[in-house]
Structures are given as structure tokens and as C-alpha cells.
């Protein structure tokens, strides 16, 4: 019946087709919104608008009537409508509370420091009670210390271990499956390896926490049971299917004629694979590593459970480590909404988003070029 409608439905169809076009923009829209709304909560940090300084001037309660309204509003952090709704008694209570708070503030040389300034986020500082200038992430503390360097190092460390473990394995398997395995073997081998991607990351985290950590410690005999190494290996398990799929895809997309030509010239299968196909597909391998990196640095549950979560600056893989993702997952629930700790975690989230965005973009561009080249386009 539909086929007979011919031209009549055109205006409506035109509308529907516009609709299809608009919906197809959703992916772009979402990327944009993610950046916008995660970034929005972090904006005050980026522009240095937050202040975590603990020393604030207080005004005695009995001065309530003598302070002008705007100043009172700012002092107590009230909006207009809130101020209008509060009676005198409550205002006095609030002022008394302000003084109580000030009395509880620590007598510390760093008490008046705004620890959310970039200087304290990136450079070491000698805090009270420390022997030397250090990178410290201690957000729940009398002086909120927000140095993000330990977290960045932690993320990089775990991800690098993961890549060193996962890339050779995944690449080897990709070469084997795409070049050497017979078609029947390939048929079950590929889906089986990809099954690894179907294991939820919380299960990988559970497995590394309960089983892998103990096995590894018995094997290597290091001090901390949960560390960057265990987390890295577990993370590697999450990365393997990513690297494998992309690398296998890249290797398979090298035209058959390349291999056939090499074989015809008398080379063996491995020579064809190693010297002809792999070099042709090498950008794809790089892309696989870039995307694997993105996946690794953004993985949360595995590192939250297996890394030990100590925010130390150390390059030893056998030390416990705290990653950016695990920090967000562990700390956000208890932060004061809109407070500086909350904003700091969103800032880390923005950082993560940008880093993974760039590594994905890189991987994407490389693959696009490679495919273009292999298919004979420019």
C-alpha cells in the first residue's frame, strides 16, 4: 500500500527526513554537552574563583543591626529570597555559627592559603607538619590539599603497565588470528577473544582484588598487596579486547593481493605477515595502542578495587597508586555539593575527558588515513 503513495507524501517525508537529520546530530550534541556540563562545574577552579582559605573575618552577633544588608548577605552566603525568609533569631544563630566555625579553624600557618590555586594544584608545597615540599592530595583534612600530580602519575603508571602487558599479547593474537589461523579456527577464535570485552569491569576488579592480587604477591613477593602492577595487569585484561579488535581489523584490511604477491614470490606465510602486512598496517597498530591508552586511563572500577589507592608520588610499579578515575569514584559521594572538593573532582573529570578525547581523536584519524590509503584513496 505504501508503494502506491508515490509523490503525495512528499512534504511529510521531507519533514521526517529533516527529523532524521536532526536526530543524527545527537552524538555531536552529547559530546558537546558532556564537555559543557562537566566543565561547567569545574569552571571556578580553572579561573581561580574558588577560595578554600579557612581564615575569615567574623562579626560579633550583637552587631547584626548595624551591618548593611548586602554585606550581611555576602557574609552569611545568603540569596535575596533566603534573607527575606529568615527571622532575626535565625540570623543571629547563623552569625553565632560563623564565629563557632572560625574558632574551630586550625591555628596553622597555611590556614589562610587558598589551596585551590593552580600553584598548589601542580607544584609541591611544604605544608605544616611536613619535612619538605611535597605533592600532597589530602582533600579531607584541616587544610584541604589538592595537588593532582600524584593522581596523574598514578593513572599514567597503571595505564603504562596495562599497555606493556596488553599490547604484545593482543598484537600477537591479532597477527595470529588475521594471518596464520585457518578460516575455521578464526571463526571461533575471534569471538572468543572478544568475549573478554563482555566481562564487566567490576568483575575484573573483583577478580584482581580477591584472586589476582594474592597470586601476584606470592609470585613476586613485593610489599603492598594492591599496587600499580596488579591494577595494571587487571587493566590490561580490559584493554586486550580493544587493542585486539582494532589491530585485527587493521591487519585484515590489508588487501589480500599483498600477501598473495609475497607468497607468489616465494615467501613464507610468516614473512608475508611480518614484512608485508604488518608494515602496511602499522598505523592501525598505533591507533589500537592510542585507543587502548584512552580506555585504560578512563577505566574506573578495576583501579578503584585493585590499585591500593595511596596517593604517593613514586614511579615504582610495586607501590600502591591512586588514579584520577578512582579518586572521583571514591570521593564524590561525600563532597559538599558545589564546594571546592566537588569542583576539584569535576576538574579532574574534565581533564580525563580532554585526555581521552585527544587520544581517541588521534587513533581515529590514524585509522581513517590508513583505510583511505589501503583502499587506494588519497
Amino acid at each position, binding site marked *: 500500500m505504501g508503494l502506491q503513495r508515490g509523490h503525495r507524501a512528499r512534504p511529510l517525508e521531507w519533514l521526517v527526513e529533516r527529523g532524521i537529520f536532526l536526530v543524527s546530530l545527537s552524538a555531536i550534541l552529547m559530546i558537546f554537552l558532556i564537555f559543557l556540563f562537566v566543565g561547567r562545574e569545574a569552571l571556578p577552579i580553572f579561573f581561580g574563583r574558588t577560595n578554600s582559605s579557612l581564615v575569615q573575618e567574623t562579626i560579633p552577633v550583637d552587631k547584626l543591626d548595624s551591618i548593611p544588608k548586602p554585606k550581611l548577605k555576602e557574609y552569611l552566603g545568603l540569596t535575596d529570597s533566603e534573607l527575606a525568609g529568615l527571622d532575626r533569631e535565625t540570623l543571629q544563630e547563623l552569625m553565632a555559627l560563623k564565629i563557632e566555625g572560625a574558632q574551630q579553624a586550625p591555628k596553622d600557618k597555611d590556614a589562610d592559603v587558598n589551596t585551590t590555586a593552580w600553584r598548589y594544584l601542580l607544584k609541591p608545597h611544604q605544608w605544616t607538619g611536613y619535612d619538605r615540599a611535597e605533592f600532597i592530595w589530602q582533600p579531607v583534612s584541616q587544610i584541604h590539599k589538592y595537588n593532582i600530580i600524584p593522581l596523574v602519575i598514578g593513572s599514567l603508571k597503571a595505564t603504562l603497565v596495562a599497555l606493556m602487558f596488553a*599490547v604484545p599479547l593482543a598484537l600477537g593474537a591479532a597477527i595470529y588470528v588475521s594471518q596464520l589461523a585457518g578460516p575455521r579456527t578464526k571463526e571461533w577464535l575471534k569471538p572468543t577473544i572478544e568475549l573478554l570485552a563482555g566481562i564487566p569491569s567490576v568483575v575484573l576488579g573483583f577478580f584482581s582484588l580477591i584472586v589476582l592480587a594474592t597470586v601476584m604477591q606470592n609470585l613476586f613477593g613485593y610489599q603492598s598487596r594492591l599496587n600499580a602492577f596488579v591494577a595494571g595487569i587487571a587493566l590490561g585484561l580490559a584493554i586486550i579486547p580493544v587493542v585486539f579488535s582494532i589491530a585485527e581489523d587493521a591487519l585484515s584490511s590489508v588487501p589480500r593481493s599483498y600477501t598473495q604477491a609475497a607468497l607468489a614470490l616465494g615467501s613464507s606465510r610468516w614473512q608475508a605477515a611480518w614484512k608485508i602486512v604488518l608494515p602496511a598496517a602499522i598505523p592501525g597498530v598505533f591507533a589500537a595502542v592510542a585507543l587502548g591508552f584512552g580506555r585504560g586511563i578512563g577505566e574506573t572500577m578495576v583501579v578503584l578495587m585493585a590499585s591500593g589507592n595511596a596517593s604517593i608520588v613514586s614511579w615504582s610499579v610495586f607501590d600502591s597508586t591512586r588514579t584520577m578515575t578512582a579518586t572521583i569514584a571514591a570521593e564524590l559521594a561525600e563532597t559538599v555539593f558545589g564546594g571546592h572538593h566537588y569542583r576539584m573532582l569535576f576538574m579532574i573529570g574534565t581533564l580525563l575527558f580532554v585526555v581521552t578525547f585527544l587520544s581517541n581523536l588521534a587513533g581515529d584519524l590514524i585509522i581513517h588515513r590508513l583505510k583511505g590509503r589501503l583502499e587506494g584513496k588519497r
Partner: protein
Amino acid sequence: MPTASSSVPSQGSDRKDLSRPFRKSSLDVASFVFGGLTGLATLLILAILAIILGNIIWHGWAGFSWRFVTSGTSQGMFDVDQAGVLPMILGTTARVMLMTLFVLPIGVITAVYLTEYASSTSLFTRIIRGAVNNLAGVPSIVFGLFGLGFFINFIGGGIDEFLLPNRPEPVWGKPAIFWASLTLAVMTLPVVIVATEESLKAILPGLREASLALGATKLETIVMIVIPQAMPGILTGGILAVSRAAGEVAPILFTGAAYYMASLPRALTDQFMDLGYHVFILSTQSPDIERTRPILYATVLVLLLLTLALNFVAILIRARMRRKMRVAAH
């Protein structure tokens, strides 16, 4: 455990060989080593997979029972003899179903646009594709932050402020199963788009041409010919999205998952208990980890059955589709 480098064939042999014709003489050993190393890597991955699955199934089976999947946690979630996972199974199922409702239409329509309308070389199409690929790579915890910042604070808070100004407490502006599902829908959008696209491309152009030649418009062709033909692929995409979302914990940490609830969620604005989050809780918060180990393993098994079974089905459908495509191409 082999070290990381052992599975890559050493590059040392000789690069200059490339210019010369390949010689048969050095073949056997090199061939053997090369095949052996790559084969070993493959085997190792399979072994790891087998160990993980074997360990979970072996230990999980012991704590697994009909009672376990049909009872709740009213006696406390750490009670080995009484605690079950029914509320978590229901919570996880409900959130992925809700998610499917959002993600399938949007994903399929986007894929239709990309394959049927957009020119494959235009810059604009490339930007859409780039965005889709990028969306697939956004860390799951960032989706969680996004869900909190956008859905809960902005949209939910907005609804409360403008539509329900008389309610003193937030109704929509707080973590809820609805927001968790939406967050997951955004996360799994690329999965659906890519799978649908693949199946749309696999349809013989002749079918479209025949339909158009008979006088059908483009849209009619798409709705009546192309989409029905692509159904298995769309289904695969949906299943893959569901299986991916079912196991994700990070995006729902702040958007809806509850540590503990005495009753099932009854409204879209309620929080829910979740299987994956429950695995996290059981493995880190249990008062006596040795004693609660059986229910921990059993919970993991349930989660794994749910996600892997779905995954397996999707992989099977896809494999069949690819074979059909190959046949069609020749």
C-alpha cells in the same frame, strides 16, 4: 607469566632482507618461532579468559541456588544464609530496559542517516562519525559526572524549579533510576549506531534499487525494505548495548544506584539496587569477607551470566550476519 616482551618476535633478524628475494633456507626455524610466539599470545589470552571464567563459575556455583536469585536482602545484605539478589537483578534489568527505550530509536535513526542520506566523504559526516567514535571512548566515570551535572542538576533541578515549585523537596533533581538509564543511554549510543550501520551496509543495493524503481520514495524504501532487512543487526546492537550497560557501575554511582534499599523502586524517581554495584559492595564492605565469599561469588556469577550470555548471543548473530554478507559480496 611471560614477561611483556617475550611474545613479540624480535626485530633483530635482519631488516635488509626486505630488499633481497626471500630465501627458503632460513624458513623453518623462523616460521616456527613466529607462529609459536603469536600462537602463544593467543593461547595465553584464552587461558586467562578460561581461568577467570572457571574460577568464577567454580566458586560461584557453590553459593548459587534458586533461593539466592529469588529472595531479597530484608535480613541484611551480608547474611550468607538469607540474602539474595532478586532486587538487584530487577534493578539492573529495569535500568537497562529503560535505557534501551531511549538509545535504540536515536541510535538507529542516526545510523540510517549516516548510511542512507549522508555522503560518505563530506566533512560533516566525518564529524558525526568522529563524535560517535569519541563518545565510545569517553571514560565511564565521566559519564557519571555528566549524568550528575546535566541530567540531575540541570534537567532534574530545572523540572523541580519550574514545574513543581510547591514541593519543598527535590523530586527529579536527585539520583534516580530514570537518570541512571539516560546516562547509560548516552554511553551506549555508539554501540547501537555502529552495529546498525554495519547491518545497513550489508543490505544488497539491488533491494533498494528495486524498491525505488517500483516507485517507492526513499523514506518508504528505508522504512519498509531496509530496516526490516537490517533487523538482526539492530537487534545485535541493542543486545550489545544492554550487555555493556548491565555490567557498568561507574556511570550509575552518582546517578541512581543505592547502597541499600529495603523496598524495590516504585517510581522513575526512585533509586535502585544494582548487581554490579552490589558486587563492589560485597567485595569491599562486607563485615567478614571470608564468610560472605559464597554470596559474593554467586553474585558475580549472576552478573556474568547476564552480561556474557547476552554478549554471546550478539556475537553469534553478528558472525552469521558477516558470513551472509561475505556470501552476498561474492
